[in-house]
């Protein structure tokens, strides 16, 4: 799996059992509390990115299905929104508990369908998913105290489109606040990762959620476009690429739909010369190689103070050489598979561009499995602001290393991007953390850590990284008529 020099302490395979999850050969759309075929009978296959094995065949939603689903959600809205908040909260608490009870099954499923390591689905995705439902369940009967005046009203039907990088977590970010505030939802998962959303549909039935409150439409971009453009949808929430986000914004211009977008990023991770070096290295690794770098808030630009560049890069390379790439179900795997052939091609093309433009490439010495979609952890040194790899979002395990001389230069370079989602600051000097954070134009700023998430903390971007906030009290606003 990994190709380090022969080590007497080579970890034996420790795979999580696949037997805990039962994947059916085919799945339908989830509309009005029932699984149903697509109106035009179309289906698509979902594969495991680590083996290219076909996991299941899933109904592909079209325009007619969007129509049906929105109608079901509209029908369910009156009763759902009229429920006392405490009653809606009970459903959400029930969903959260079922997610916890089934978390091992869901973690394995997510790893199979997405390609990310079981270590991450088990220790990050699933605990956060449950935490999100618990958190917003608590808000359901306290909306009067959320700061939007007495008795704030829901918007109606929410059309939600989510990406493939954190399939179930993004679902939780979207559905939990929508239901807590009394909206009903139609959600389209990404075409490469539809399964966990369909398992969630089953959880909704298990929890006895009224029919039509949650509808799940697996499908491609056409279904997403039909959903967001549907005239009876009152609220659109999208997480994904900046290009698609712009299309949606154009399509919605002039309508009264409320829109929130969470788009791409090119996060700067700024390391000052007085940083705690060993922990900074861990933070850099977690910042860009968590989920194979397929994270919108990834710290994909490392800005390191020139005076410590050599020692930091030496430490970083040594650390990257210990990363274990391979079977995502193995509990010792650090780096899993890239989600799709398409994404792998995109990463490869951008890395080739980086090399062609003269940036120096270094990849961790690891053997890639022969089937599936894989990319070795890679970093580019000698990168300047003019390089493509410093400007474009790669959305893969690729780190661009830039240097700076002074705090002002660090801030200028960090802000010199069309994006503004995340940033990190590494220094032992508290006053510098506060001074630099105030000047950074990014929605989330971590200091002496990176990629830490919590349902109580709002998340969202500046500039082309989108608008609106998810999580925390602020996350309620997107789903309330305020």
């Amino acid at each position, binding site marked *: 799996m990994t190709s380090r*020099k022969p*080590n*007497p*302490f*080579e*970890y*034996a*395979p*420790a795979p999580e059992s696949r037997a805990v999850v039962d994947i059916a050969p085919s799945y339908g759309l989830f509309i009005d509390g029932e699984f149903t075929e697509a109106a035009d009978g179309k289906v698509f296959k979902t594969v495991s990115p680590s083996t290219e094995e076909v996991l299941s065949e899933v109904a592909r939603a079209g325009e007619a299905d969007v129509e049906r689903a929105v109608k079901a959600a509209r029908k369910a809205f009156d009763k759902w929104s009229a429920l006392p908040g405490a009653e809606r909260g009970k459903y959400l608490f029930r969903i959260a508990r079922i997610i916890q009870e089934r978390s091992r099954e869901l973690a394995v499923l997510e790893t199979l369908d997405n390609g990310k390591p079981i*270590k991450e689905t088990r*220790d990050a995705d699933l605990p956060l998913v449950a935490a999100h439902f618990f958190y917003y369940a608590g808000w359901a009967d306290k909306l009067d105290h959320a700061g939007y005046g007495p008795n704030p009203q829901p918007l109606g039907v929410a059309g939600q489109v989510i990406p493939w990088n954190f399939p179930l977590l993004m679902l939780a970010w979207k559905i939990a606040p929508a239901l807590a505030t009394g909206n009903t939802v139609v959600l389209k998962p990404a075409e490469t990762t539809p399964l966990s959303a369909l398992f969630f549909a089953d959880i909704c039935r298990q929890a006895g959620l009224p029919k039509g409150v949650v509808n799940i439409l697996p499908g491609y971009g056409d279904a997403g476009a039909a959903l967001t453009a549907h005239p009876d949808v009152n609220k659109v929430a999208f997480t994904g690429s900046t290009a698609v986000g712009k299309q949606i914004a154009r399509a919605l211009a002039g309508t009264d739909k409320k829109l929130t977008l969470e788009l791409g990023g090119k996060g700067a991770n700024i390391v000052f010369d*007085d*940083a*705690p*070096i*060993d*922990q*900074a290295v*861990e*933070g850099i690794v977690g910042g860009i190689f968590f989920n194979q770098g397929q994270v919108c808030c990834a710290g994909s630009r490392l800005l390191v103070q020139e*005076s*410590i560049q*050599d*020692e930091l890069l*030496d430490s970083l390379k040594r650390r990257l050489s*210990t990363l274990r790439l391979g079977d995502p179900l193995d*509990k*010792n795997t650090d780096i899993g598979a890239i989600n799709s052939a398409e994404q792998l091609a995109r990463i490869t093309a951008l890395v080739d561009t980086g090399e062609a433009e003269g940036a120096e490439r270094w990849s961790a010495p690891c053997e890639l499995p022969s089937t599936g979609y894989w990319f070795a952890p890679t970093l580019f040194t000698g990168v300047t602001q003019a390089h493509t790899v410093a400007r474009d979002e790669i959305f893969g395990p690729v780190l661009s290393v830039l240097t700076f001389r002074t705090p002002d230069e660090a801030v200028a370079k960090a802000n010199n991007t069309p994006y503004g989602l995340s940033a990190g600051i590494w220094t*032992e*000097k*508290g*006053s510098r953390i506060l001074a630099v954070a105030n000047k950074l134009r990014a929605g989330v700023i971590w200091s*002496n*850590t990176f990629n830490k998430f919590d349902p109580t903390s709002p998340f969202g971007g500046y500039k082309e990284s989108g608008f609106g906030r998810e999580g925390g009290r602020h996350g309620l606003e997107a789903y309330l008529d305020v």
Partner: protein
Amino acid sequence: MFHRRQEESSTGAKGCERNVTPERKLCGAEDFTSRYARRYAPLVTMPPVPKSDKPAKAEKAAKVDKADKKVKSVKTESAATPAKSPFADVTASDATLRRFLHGLPGVDTVGLEARAAALGTRSIKTTAKAYAIDLAISMIDLTTLEGADTAGKVHALGAKAVHPDPTDRGTPTTAAVCVYPDMVATAKAAVAGSGVKVASVATAFPAGRAALGVKLADTKDAVAAGADEIDMVIDRGAFLSGDYMKVYEEIRAVKEAAGPARLKVIFETGELSTYDNIRRASWIGMIAGADFIKTSTGKVGVNATPANTLLMLEAVRDFRAQTGVQIGVKPAGGIRSTKDAIKFLVLVNETAGPDWLDNHWFRFGASSLLNDLLMQRQKLATGRYSGPDYVTVD
């Protein structure tokens, strides 16, 4: 605290600008590539450090099974005379030593503990587990440090160290038995001919509150009785009051008194309290010539933890990268289960690296750990758990 470090380094830089000699400039800017040099270049001059880790490799190659030869090879490297020490300028005065220690990169508590916890989730199964259990047994310093120790008790301990599992003679021996100085001769006799070392605590263990002369006499007495290894405690009072030089000098003096015996330096991390302090203590120990740095005595509330051991493993890793000299690490106290021991071995493997996966470079100071390892070992061999009556009670 943050501010003070900033001030110090900036005054240091100014001082450098004021009297830059060509020699210093070269040393600071060109030849000197080692990790902490940059922070110190203005303050101290050190000879350039070879970039490759050849000395360590050469030493590894020279390592043969006969343990006494190992000791010699280490001795030649780490017992350098003060004049040749690459840290001569660091230890030139109280001020230089303090500046060096306070200029080491800080430790972020949350990040360090998170990394230790993350490595604790490694899943070590089947063949890897079998390897780890045998390795852990071979790394134990089987310890009895009680006021109630008797010749009978020490004799039993020695027998157990030589044949840990009476039902399986193929079980590796432990690395050493660890006793008080007055029990060294007894222990030596108990393990005679087995290759098991005898380690003795010394220097007024565990408090270390005695005059230097007493500590040195304690050490010499243990070595004279045949101790192969000396486990000394540092003067925590001196460390916490900022008298780093006293701590350093004392380690050097004990090192000299210990002669051929390998020296383990106990910091009592639970009393040093902060991770920054543990990192500083590690560097004092390494610069002063310790062969091992060791977490604790086992006599205070907080002993070895994954986080403080991880930090010390980073220290020996960095020290070898800078000087070519490899130094061992010994967590002691509180490690009782196989699961815990394996977590520590994962820390070693993924922090210092496989070069430390050898009882010459890593030890567990423990007593009850051995029986749990033996029960797990029997379980791997037979497929079922035996129980505490199938291992010896000592």
